[in-house]
């Protein structure tokens, strides 16, 4: 027998013995896992955004399989379509949840809210917020450093180069709320998504007194409560000089939009109606001087 044959046989025998040992160990210490977990996971978007409240998509799949009912379980990114598929797979009743979307409640573009100083620190909203009130006179408004952009795992949010404000792409946004948690000023809110993405909301979070807020920004909410008086559905509350529209109560009649003296209430994605403005203010003169901050 030559050396080559001997080597081959020896290696084959070692291989076979090792395989047997490994097989025996694998059988002995096998972890029983429900095969449906893998199936559910494959249905999920895989963004691992944490919007469902679980540590990630796999964790959510495990919870779905273990749960007795899908009540309160929602993948905000996949929405009702994905939840229906999961329900079918698990043989459970699908619970219809209201789809949600992130809304940026600040309209302080350079034109509406003049810059009074230049920020030179690290490009990070949390840092800027801890240092000072910001580049404008408004201590509540958007700082524009993009903490919300960097946490969005779906790429649904971006900073508009003209207004320096974040813009949410409602076709991509799953309403997971990662941006709302990242915003140090609580400007982003996850609200009920209306039909065809329609929504009515107060695009301001300034709690200063009316005169102070208005001095800092042309489109600030001054807490005059005209909108609250106009609303027939009790959807509007005023507290700390600031109006808030409850998206679960709002019937989108848009009466408040018409009475708002500062234009702080926005109605978005409605078909053009006589004089109603749409969300994103029309880009005005390009603003190159301000683009050099940081």
């Amino acid at each position, binding site marked *: 027998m030559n050396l080559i044959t001997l080597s081959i046989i020896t290696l084959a025998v070692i291989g076979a013995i090792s395989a047997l040992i490994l097989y025996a160990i694998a059988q002995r210490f096998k972890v029983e896992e429900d095969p449906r977990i893998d199936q559910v996971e494959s249905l999920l978007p895989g963004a691992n955004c944490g919007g469902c409240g679980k540590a990630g998509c796999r964790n959510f799949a495990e919870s779905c399989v273990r749960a007795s009912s899908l009540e309160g379980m929602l993948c905000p990114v996949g929405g009702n379509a994905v939840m229906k598929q999961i329900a079918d797979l698990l043989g459970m009743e699908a619970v219809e949840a209201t789809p949600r979307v992130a809304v940026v409640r600040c309209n302080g573009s350079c034109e509406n809210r003049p810059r*009074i*100083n230049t920020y*030179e*620190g*690290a490009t*990070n909203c*949390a*840092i800027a917020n*801890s*240092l*000072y*009130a*910001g*580049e404008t*006179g408004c*201590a509540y408004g958007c700082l524009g450093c993009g903490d919300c952009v960097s946490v969005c795992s779906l790429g649904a949010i971006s900073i508009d180069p003209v207004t320096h404000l974040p813009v949410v792409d409602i076709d991509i946004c799953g309403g997971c709320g990662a941006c709302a948690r990242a915003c140090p000023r609580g400007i982003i809110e996850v609200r009920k998504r209306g039909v065809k993405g329609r929504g009515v909301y107060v695009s301001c979070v300034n709690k*200063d007194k009316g005169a102070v807020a208005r001095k800092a920004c042309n489109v600030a909410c001054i807490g005059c409560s005209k909108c609250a008086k106009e609303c027939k559905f009790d959807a509007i509350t005023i507290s700390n000089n600031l109006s808030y529209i409850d998206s679960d109560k709002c019937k989108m009649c848009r009466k408040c939009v018409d009475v708002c003296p500062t234009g702080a209430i926005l109605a978005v994605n409605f078909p053009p109606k006589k004089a109603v403005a749409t969300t994103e203010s029309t880009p005005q003169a390009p603003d190159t001087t301000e683009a050099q901050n940081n």
Partner: protein
Amino acid sequence: MKTFKIGGVHPQENKLTAGSPIVAAPLPQQAVVMLSQHIGAPAQCVVEKGTPVKVGTLIAQANGFVSANIHSPVSGVVAKVDMAADSSGYMKPAIYINVEGDEWEDSIDRSNTLIKECNLDAQAIINKIDEMGIVGIGGATFPTKVKLMPPPGMKPEVLIINAAECEPYLTNDHALMLAHTDEIMVGIEILMKAISVNKAYIGIEVNKPDAIALLTDKARSHNGIKVVPLKCKYPQGGEKQLIDAIINRQVASGALPVSTGAVVQNVATAYAVYEAVQKNKPLIERVVTITGTSLKNPGNYLARIGMPIEQLIEAAGGLSENAEKIILGGPMMGKATANIQAPTGKGTSGIVVMTQEDAHRQEPSPCIRCAKCVEACPMGLEPYLLSKATAMGNYEVAESHYIYDCIECGCCSFSCPAHRPLLDYIRMGKGKVMGIIRARNANDKK
């Protein structure tokens, strides 16, 4: 020559106002006194709209142990108690006082006579300091009485007076040492009595030879006080650095500086203590260095607290066209302000007006792992790692690398050849980690 052992940098000194005398700044028409001018709980307002006040009238009371009394810096009538934008632009509670004349409380001794003898005992001195609202006016504004009452089991052995003034541009302590040497010496003796020690060192950098000569001369007639000249190196005036430089002891991570047996007080605080204890004068005014290459009359101004920054700059010649950045405090640790209508506080040691070329921050580029920041860090930390860990949200790594030991001196950002905003991130990470530690301790207690 003595100095601290690790790290440190030597920025250009730019002490434009060195040797200039202390000049009284004009009175404001309206003083705005913030209720939070110290570390700790904001003081509680004890006056209301329409209350007439004199200079030195108590207008806000300390709210808790770590807090300080606030006295009216002007005479007149309280216009309102309302929110005011402070130097950060955020609204904080404040007392507005319309100034009428300049009438002082009768209890305050305004003469220039030096009162050497102090017959109060240690506790009475501390009570007096507490009553007069004295805080550490080197910049940190920590209530002085708290530092004079170390926790049980810790015995102070020596008093260290911080006269290093290592910040570039600032000369307010220097001016004070030249003008009020005798008063400072008495103030130091009072502080020594308050913590019952018989040794005091005055740490002072060698770029102030006139002050060193004067202090050394006066110290001869005072038992136990010794002047220690120090090498010019930033941050020599850091509490832990000064203890290291003068008595060669190191403060352990997380421990109080008094655990080394040293109590550190600023030289300006010693002067304020003299005035409080011997003259009954609360902390209502301080020396502020108003400086910058673009100013017409930079100098050391004796300004009442609550004076709008804008008016102080006006007194020093006004803002010029090329002024770009206004910093409260020194350029290394001070904070740039966007609101010059904001009033000064007890901790405002300087107002530095910087021009475009002095102040403009460079565009950051990637870290090249040169470790200059590690070499510069006086606390022996790794700033590049801490800033990266914070940026990535990895607070476990930040904590395990002692981010909470950072003294925020800015040596790392100053030394970085890639102009990375290291301290910006570390400061935020430090706050986050301290919050995590506090929450964990609170949880453990439950």
